[in-house]
Every structure is written in structure tokens, then in C-alpha cells.
């Protein structure tokens, strides 16, 4: 006879409510884990997207994400000719605000050379950029649809394809345009300003610069040799993909990551205390019944099983409810909530450990109960 299940069934409504309350708490914990993962994942998305081996940026900078970087556009040719480089492409990054369908969109514009590294890896819908100008591929989170147009600066671009998961470390969705369009967007003056400059007789000297050049290595080529060679040029610096990812995490998202990490720690501590209180209270309410069980000869293991099984059922139910809730609402968060199976299982382990520890408190109280308590009242 399983006394734990019988007791749960007896007060089912109350137990379900308790589980639901715990489930809501677990939803918040899982949401924070997801937000934490999302922050890291978003921050790395833009670095990982080009599938690069080496980033060549302006000397003395930590560009192009941690700080601004500007190098001559023809650096790409120089890098592409270096030993071990399979292909290279110049890229440009900038944030713009554009008005579309009655709302302002904050967009991360990635300029790349079609056919070279730096563009989107997989098109989810539509096609990639096929024309030299005024076409773009947008992340689905922009809300743009293939065939729609949107104005950036003085030019109107047509959406030809959609990608997923492309954004900058701030969570702004990305659009891909040609490098030429991106450079024009960055440097072209407003017509009125152009007229003023022309009236003053100023000669426009446009230096073609890009934010970075990314290189993919041939199989077996030495990445460290390439970066060492590039660093010999006074105006350039080079980082491996791993260094760029580390730099982004350390310099750009570190504070936010630590903030959320600390909050997550506090939240887990609060959850542990709440679980412990619930289980301890549940046990305290049963002390008379536990005394009766002792009096009629129930061994300690029967009483321990009653408490521990209920604690584990409570924890498992709360975890499952929390998981179901977060999975059903995570897509409504403005920023990505990324839940890995590993995180979910680790939380399950933590909850199981907390439940066992909490039930130990209850078991201790139950073991102290004098069976005589059941008599004489």
C-alpha cells in the first residue's frame, strides 16, 4: 500500500495547487536559464554566422564587435593571397533604425560580398541576394516578408529571402545586404549636405573601408601562422574564431551575463527555500498520523518513504509543469530563450537534491515524534 500516493489523492486539489505554484517558480527559473543562454547564444550568433577561421581587423582595436574597426577594403585581396587561406571576404556591420509597416525597426545591417564568406549560411525562405544592389535577406524576427520593401537611408531595398537566428549581441535582428550597399549606407551624405559640400567646393574623398576581413583556411592550414603573419602588418590585427568569441563574451556581454547569472543563483536559492518550506510544512501537518503509524508498528522506512516519495513527486511535478509552461511561452519573449536539454536535466537534478535535503528535515522531525502523541487526545 503506497501511503504517499494515498495521501496525495486524499488532498489532490491542494497538492495540485502546490505543484502548480512550484511549477510557476520553476518556469521563472527555467526562463532565467533560457534568457542567460539566449544572451550568450545571441552574442555569439553574429560571430559564428560567417563560419570563419580568422578575423582580420584594424590594428589596436578589438573589432568589429567589441569596438569599431576600419581597414582598407582591398585588405581582402591581400589576405586571400596568403598561404593556407581558402577564401576571404570583407564585411561591414552597422545598426540602423528603419520605419516599416507603421513601426520603427532597429536592425543590424551586415554587408558582405555575395559568393564570399560573411553572408548567411542557410536561407530559410526565399533566395539569397542575386543582384548587386538593393536586395536584402532578413532575419525572420524583423517581421519582414519576401517581396516587401524597406527604406534604409535614401535607398529602398527589396526583401528576397529570410534567415533565422541572425542577430547582434543586443538582440537586434540582422539583415544582409551587399557590401557595396552597406558601405554606401554608412558613408553617403544626405542630399542637402552633399549640396552644401559641393557649394563649398569640397572634394569628396571616399576611402573604401570595411570593418573586417574574414578568412577560411584550407584543410590542414595553420591558423596561428596566418594570424602571426597578419599581425606583422602595422595597420592590421588578427584573431582566431575562438579569440573573437571569447572577446565578445568577455567585453560585450560579460556584465549582463554575470547579472543574470547572479540573479539565477538567487532565484535557485529562493526556490530551494520554498521547496524546503513546503515539504517541511507538509510533514508537520502529518505528525499526528505519523505518530499513529509508529504506534501501530510501522517501521521507520514506511514513514521515510511517505515523506521522501511525496517530496520527489512534488519536485518532479513542479519541474514538469515549469518545463511545459516555459516551452509554451518562450517564443513570446522579446529576446531568445534558449533551453538546452542539459540545462533542463541539471535543474531536474538540483530539484531532486533539494527535495531530498528538504525531506531530510521532515524525516528528522518525523523520527522525533513520540508514538504516545497518538494516545490520549
Amino acid at each position: 500500500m503506497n501511503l504517499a500516493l494515498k495521501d496525495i489523492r486524499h488532498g489532490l486539489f491542494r497538492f495540485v495547487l502546490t505543484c502548480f505554484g512550484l511549477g510557476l517558480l520553476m518556469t521563472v527559473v527555467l526562463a532565467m536559464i533560457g534568457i542567460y543562454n539566449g544572451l550568450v547564444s545571441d552574442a555569439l550568433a553574429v560571430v559564428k554566422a560567417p563560419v570563419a577561421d580568422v578575423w582580420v581587423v584594424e590594428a589596436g582595436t578589438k573589432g568589429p564587435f567589441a569596438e569599431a574597426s576600419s581597414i582598407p577594403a582591398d585588405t581582402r585581396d591581400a589576405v586571400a593571397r596568403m598561404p593556407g587561406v581558402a577564401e576571404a571576404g570583407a564585411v561591414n556591420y552597422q545598426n540602423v533604425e528603419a520605419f516599416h509597416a507603421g513601426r520603427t525597426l532597429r536592425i543590424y545591417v551586415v554587408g558582405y560580398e555575395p559568393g564570399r564568406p560573411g553572408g548567411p549560411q542557410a536561407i530559410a525562405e526565399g533566395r539569397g541576394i542575386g543582384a548587386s544592389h538593393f536586395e536584402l535577406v532578413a532575419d525572420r524576427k524583423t517581421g519582414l516578408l519576401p517581396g516587401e520593401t524597406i527604406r534604409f537611408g535614401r535607398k529602398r531595398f527589396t526583401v528576397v529571402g529570410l534567415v533565422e537566428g541572425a542577430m547582434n549581441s543586443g538582440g537586434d535582428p540582422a539583415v544582409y545586404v551587399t557590401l557595396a550597399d552597406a558601405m554606401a549606407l554608412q558613408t553617403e551624405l544626405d542630399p542637402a549636405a552633399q549640396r552644401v559640400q559641393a557649394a563649398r567646393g569640397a572634394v569628396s574623398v571616399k576611402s573604401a573601408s570595411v570593418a573586417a576581413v574574414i578568412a577560411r583556411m584550407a584543410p590542414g592550414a595553420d591558423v596561428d601562422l596566418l594570424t602571426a603573419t597578419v599581425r606583422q602588418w602595422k595597420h592590421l590585427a588578427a584573431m582566431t574564431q575562438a579569440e573573437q568569441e571569447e572577446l565578445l563574451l568577455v567585453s560585450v556581454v560579460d556584465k549582463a551575463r554575470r547579472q543574470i547569472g547572479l540573479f539565477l543563483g538567487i532565484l535557485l536559492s529562493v526556490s530551494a527555500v520554498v521547496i524546503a518550506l513546503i515539504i517541511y510544512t507538509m510533514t508537520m501537518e502529518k505528525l499526528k498520523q505519523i505518530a499513529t503509524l509508529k504506534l501501530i508498528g510501522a517501521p521507520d522506512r514506511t514513514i521515510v518513504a511517505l515523506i521522501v516519495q511525496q517530496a520527489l513527486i512534488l519536485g518532479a511535478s513542479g519541474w514538469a509543469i515549469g518545463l511545459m509552461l516555459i516551452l509554451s511561452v518562450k517564443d513570446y519573449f522579446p529576446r531568445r530563450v534558449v533551453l538546452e536539454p542539459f540545462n533542463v536535466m541539471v535543474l531536474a537534478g538540483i530539484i531532486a537534491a533539494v527535495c531530498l535535503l528538504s525531506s531530510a528535515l521532515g524525516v528528522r522531525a518525523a523520527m522525533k515524534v513520540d508514538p504516545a502523541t497518538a494516545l490520549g487526545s
Partner: protein
Amino acid sequence: MALGDILIEVSNVAKHFGEGETRVDALRAVDLAVRAGEVIALLGPSGSGKTTLLNIIGCILAPSAGRVVLDGEPVFDGRWLRRDLRRLRLDKIGFIFQAHNLLPFLTAEENVAVVLDLAGLHAEEGRVRARELLDYLEVGHRAKVKPALLSGGEAQRVAIARALANRPRIILADEPTAALDGARAGLVMDLMRKLAVEQEACIVTVTHDEKIFDRFDRLIHLRDGRLADA
């Protein structure tokens, strides 16, 4: 009625709580023997030591001095662990409480069967035995009902069924009829006596209920921790 073997033998038992100035002597040199088939009552004013004696016989409380033998086995002689005493209670002693103390999350039938389950009886056998007992005590029709929905008399009969489920030879009852009216109290005592005789058990009852004094073989009076009269 023919009486059988001695089931409870209490010799020179004393029990005190606290030491020095706070010492309270609850029992002083109590001797008592109860035979199979015998139904006795422990009487006395509050604080006279009735419940302490009941707890010692029930292996809940260890005596400070003296010897206790239950169904031929000396207990509290230093050989018994707490879990062994609990097992002894399960095998040999049945308890009936003033407040029936049925487990609220079990049905009447399960409340009886749980004792058999703890004793290691197969679930189905336990259920059949529980049902037989409830039928015998005329509460079989309430077998699937939770204690909260039973009347006082029904709940007390279920509690009796639970106390008798494992066929204990010693039945200890603490004010078993306090919550019942005179007629029902008499019926319950008659029932307990009948079962005690059938199971060759003895019954020790703590009571203040004068209406049922005539149902006992002996009335044991306790005063200030001593036997006043037997």
C-alpha cells in the same frame, strides 16, 4: 469464563520523570498480571499514572525500574531496540484510541488493511481480512468510505477492527467509549470482549466511563502512581 495464560506481567514497575527537585514519580512499584480472555479497566484521577502504565505495557515508554513480560517475552531488558519494540507492537499489541485516530487519507477498509500490509501480508489477503472484520463489526457497508464521513460509532468500530486486524494478544484501549452514548458504549465493550475471547487476547482499558464499569472483569484503581485496589 475460563482464563488462559498470563499475557501481561508487570512486576515492581516504577516510572519517574525528571530528576532532583523536578522529579515526578508517575508509577511506584506497580504489580499487575492480566490473563488471556480477561478484560480489565484502569481507573483513577488525572495524574494517577493510568496512561503511563498503558504506555509502558504498549512498549511506548520504558520503565525506570521493574520487569515487564508480554506474552511470555521480557521487554525493556536491554536487548530490545526501538525498531524491535515497534515490531513487537505490530505483532502482539492492538491500540484503540479515544479519538479513533484513523488515517484520514485511507478508506475504512484500508485503515484496517494497512496493519496487515505492515505485517507483510499479501495485499489481497489483507483486503479480504479487513473486509471480514468490518463485516463482523457491522460496518462492512462503509468499507470504501473515508473516516471524515463515518459517524463516531462507525469510526470507533473501524478503529477496533484495525486494532484486531493482526490478531494481537494484547489490546490496549484509551477511553474507547468516551465519544459514544451509553447504549453504543455498552455495545462496543461487548464486542471487544467477544473478540478478545475468540482471539484469546486480553484487554486493558483506561476509562472514566462509569456506564461500562460492569463490562469489566476487574477494575484496577491507581492513585499517586500506586495500585489502590484490585
